[in-house]
């Protein structure tokens, strides 16, 4: 072991750490600024607040037009949780059929499913909006939740199909000999073994629904229905007269659920990305 090797190693760690801090700076800036009094947010670039205050959080939580952020958080949570359940249940049902069952038109339907993965959302956007507005679903959460209950995110169906294909078929066969029907096979054999794929699906569905600004903006215009993303966007006035402290404080809070889920499921999360290429 030579000294020069240690130096190279230290140097590399140094660069990686420095670059990592640079990467984290915007997030850290957001966090620290949310505790600074309004007047200091843009005048002091340092990360450590010279004056520490919780006022921003108190002010921000009041929300807008008398609707507080507790409402927005509850709304976002409702949408996200119901989306997660929908995706887990219906995608796994479809995946089981595609991976394990034989049926008419299977190959055609399978091809259709693969194609829908590549389909840009915007091609469906206008007609879907028209359908939902004819159903009088605009300004309800149904346009955001119902698609998840119809396995509309084919990506997750494919993810689960791939996973089920890795489960030995002998398990199914011996269970069938023991008298299990398809329903029992799905519930007793496949679902317990599918848990890692279900968790990956759940995590990503939650985060994507939580962050999904575009559809929320299109379908929700009543303030009492607003989600966290819409609430923050409304606090924000690009012309510069926003209450920055409140805005940044609520921004921090909007990231907390995502960070929490990430921390809890880090291993599953990063493995899920690595193996499936989810973004």
């Amino acid at each position, binding site marked *: 072991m030579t000294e020069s090797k240690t130096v190279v190693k230290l140097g*590399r*760690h140094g660069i*990686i750490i420095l670059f*990592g801090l640079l990467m*984290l700076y*915007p*997030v850290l*800036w957001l966090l620290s600024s949310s505790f600074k009094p309004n007047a200091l947010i843009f005048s002091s*670039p340092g990360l450590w607040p010279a004056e520490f205050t919780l006022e921003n959080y108190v002010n921000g939580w009041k929300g807008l037009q008398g609707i507080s952020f507790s409402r927005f958080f509850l709304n976002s949570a409702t949408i996200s949780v119901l989306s997660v359940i929908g995706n887990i*249940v*219906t*995608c796994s*049902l*479809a995946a*089981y*059929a*595609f991976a394990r*069952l*034989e*049926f*008419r038109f299977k190959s055609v339907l399978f091809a*259709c499913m693969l194609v*829908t993965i*590549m*389909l*840009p959302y*915007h*091609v*469906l*956007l*206008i*007609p*879907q*909006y*028209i*359908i939902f507005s004819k159903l009088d679903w605009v300004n309800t959460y149904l346009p955001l939740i119902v698609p998840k209950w*119809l396995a*509309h995110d084919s990506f997750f*169906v494919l993810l689960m199909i791939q996973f089920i294909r890795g489960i030995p078929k002998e398990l199914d066969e011996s269970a069938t000999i023991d008298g299990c029907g*398809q329903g029992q096979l*799905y519930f007793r054999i496949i679902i317990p073994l599918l848990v890692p794929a279900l968790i990956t699906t759940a995590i990503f569905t939650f*985060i994507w629904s939580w962050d999904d*600004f*575009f559809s929320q903006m299109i379908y929700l215009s009543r303030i009492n229905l607003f989600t966290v*993303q819409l609430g*923050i966007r409304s606090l*924000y006035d*690009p012309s510069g007269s926003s209450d*920055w402290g409140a805005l940044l404080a609520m*921004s921090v809070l*909007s*990231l907390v659920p*995502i*960070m929490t889920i*990430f921390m809890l499921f*880090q291993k599953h999360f990063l493995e899920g*990305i690595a*193996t499936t*290429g*989810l973004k």
Partner: protein
Amino acid sequence: MKTAHKSALWKNSGTAYLFLLPWLIGFFGLTLGPMLGSFYLSLTKYNLLNPPAWLGFGNYKHIFTADDYFTKSLGVTFKYVLFSVPLKMAFALLVAVALNKGIRALGIYRTVYYIPSLLGGSVAIAIVWRQIFDGEGLVNRFLSWFGIEGPAWIAHPSYILSTIVTLSIWQFGSAMVIFLAGIKQIPADLYEAAQVDGAGKLRQFGRITLPMLSPVIFFNLVMGIINSFQVFTPGYVIGDGRGGPVNSTLFYTLYLYLKGFSFFDMGYAAALAWIMLIIIGLFTSIVFITSKFWVFYGDGKDGR
């Protein structure tokens, strides 16, 4: 025998279709139906209130011959895709390679580099980004320490797009995680053999790492193109939400949104969506076709 098999298939089909039912409803009701509907609408003038009025290819004709915003928004989006996708992948690959060399505390580094990808899609981060790059913001203050006078990143039409591109590059973490997993799959003896043959690090990277990773690069490239064409939130929040300044943030999706949901010209917006579909299809097919020449699979089935 054959009929027995057939009837069994039909019998099984019943159960299978039960499992498939939600997906089938979704496919016909939310994908296939809307696709056909969207194509029909693109041939009409429709504002939600009055019944669609048939135009034939009128919308398309107008888009291609008389719509400056179409050209403009396509240009903005192309520029974004052209810079964002390759740069993001280059960063991801570079950092993945740097992190791979048996480094300690890899888990922590990987997490740190991944966090931007995790949070970057939110409105909150887009707002932070706008403030950091603002004329009086932190980036310019930092530059001023070195005596550089930074431009008005947000207010100036020539710079705001690069600000949005930086935001997307900043989120290279997810691609990096995929690359890291790919690099781990490369057999170590390949490198050992190369070392014996006297190949340097750079040569090893070019001759082993890159070809062995080409399927992953291919995958990241296709997904990157599809996703980048659909970018919306960062442009909407960092710009003024109407494409300004001077149309420099008029992303294709934003133009489509404005046509459909501000002007309620649903038919026109549908036509824009179809053109977008064709453009994305074209780009991904080019990648697919050329992949024959640059994607290598370890099992000898090159280009498949």
